[in-house]
């Protein structure tokens, strides 16, 4: 679900153009979530600030229920995330995994790697100067 939450809405739309019939249990709605941190990274929690989130719940033919929680305010994004969640519970799971989730995962890990490589290029290599007393 993290892969769907992080996906760019346009990309998910391109990968899942056809929308199977569904009934909303909760129509897509935009709200916010309070993000928490921990003091010192590991201590007591505190409230850092909020982020926008859009969520949706729906049922597809066959009865599978899908939930979508995605970052941002795109309602179609949340709806598609819920659809994928529902489709992954049925016979279409293999197809959805190959056609939707695998490409999203590949792109996201590619982006992560690209950032890590840029960071690696800025890693400082220290070298010790020869001391004068010898």
């Amino acid at each position, binding site marked *: 679900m*993290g892969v769907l939450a992080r996906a760019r809405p346009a990309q998910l739309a391109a990968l899942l153009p056809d929308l199977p019939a569904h009934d909303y249990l909760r129509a897509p709605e935009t709200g916010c*979530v309070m993000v928490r941190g921990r003091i010192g990274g590991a201590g007591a929690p505190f409230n850092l*600030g909020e982020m926008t989130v859009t969520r949706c719940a729906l049922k597809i033919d066959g009865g599978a229920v899908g*939930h979508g929680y995605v970052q941002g305010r795109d309602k179609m994004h949340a709806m598609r995330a819920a659809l994928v969640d529902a489709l992954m519970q049925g016979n279409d799971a293999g197809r959805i995994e190959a056609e939707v989730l695998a490409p999203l995962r590949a792109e996201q890990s590619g982006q992560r790697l690209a950032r890590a490589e*840029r960071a690696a*290029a800025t890693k400082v290599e220290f070298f010790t100067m020869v001391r004068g007393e010898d």
Partner: protein
Amino acid sequence: MYVATKGGERAIDAAHQWLAEERRGDPSAPELTIVQIREQMALAVNRVMAEGSLYDRDLAALAIKQARGDLIEAIFLIRAYRTTLPRFGASQPVDTDAMALSRRISATFKDAPGGQVLGPTFDYTHRLLDFTLMAEGEAPQAARKPADPAPAPHILQLLDRDGLMEPLPASDETPPDLTREPLEMPADRPLRLQALARGDEGFVLSMAYSTQRGYGRTHAFVGELRIGTCAVDMEIPELGFAIEIGEIELTECETVNQFTGSKTEPPQFTRGYGLVMGQSERKAISMSLVDRALRWAELGEDDMGAPAQDAEFVLYHCDNIQATGFLEHIKLPHYVDFQSELELIRKLRRDAGAETCKEAAE
């Protein structure tokens, strides 16, 4: 007598029309798009998200455009928008140990595991205007090197292991939330950190600077500064487990502060902590210095009477939206209030005048 008056609608409409025209500027210049602001004014966008206390790059970019680049006005727009959103819940605390790093430096340990990663920093630039940016050029490309998959643990854990760091008590207590309950004193550390995280960068910077100059000195070193993205997980009631709902960029600063011990605490290094949404290291460092200064009481330090030690002073004045709201309201019509002041001054002068006349006659 109280006289209600009405008027100004036409003037207000015309003022807003002119504002819209001024916002657009010279129509022969291309109009800024939200994407351009989001991508090329990223640090302004980050500041609006951090102090608007809402992580949404597109909305922050829109607010900056609407506010003509006035960041406090943009933060105001985001705060106002935020109040229209239902809150779905709170996330699990983000795990900054697992941050996908774009920058990570330590001023205390040269050879920390994971290394010193500079990232896209202004540090070591010459601060000379770059006139090539005035010409349309090709998009520059960053250098790349194979990434090191080794983890980069928090550097202060090294000192922690030797028992030289003040312990960090873990807890899962629900923190207080100043957006739900009014901020009241005394404020515990989680509440102070929430207020500082959304506080005005300039104000928090000045407070931090004042501690460095001697007003509540805390001898801070930047133990670690890291910038990168963290996954945000939230427990979903209808699912009964936590899922990842997105990822956000964060800047985290941990300071190590010299501490010679007090009546209650042994000599050890103490901590200041800063965590800010987006890439904002000036703010994160400032926050950790102010956090540490505000901890004087729990560490048994002396109250030097320094502004940065005064939680009430710091926390009640760090919010730029509250500050600007109260400050700017004095320019709005106060005709009736002022009328009464005028009456009072006239009466006092009349009385004083009568007194003088009487004295002269005597």
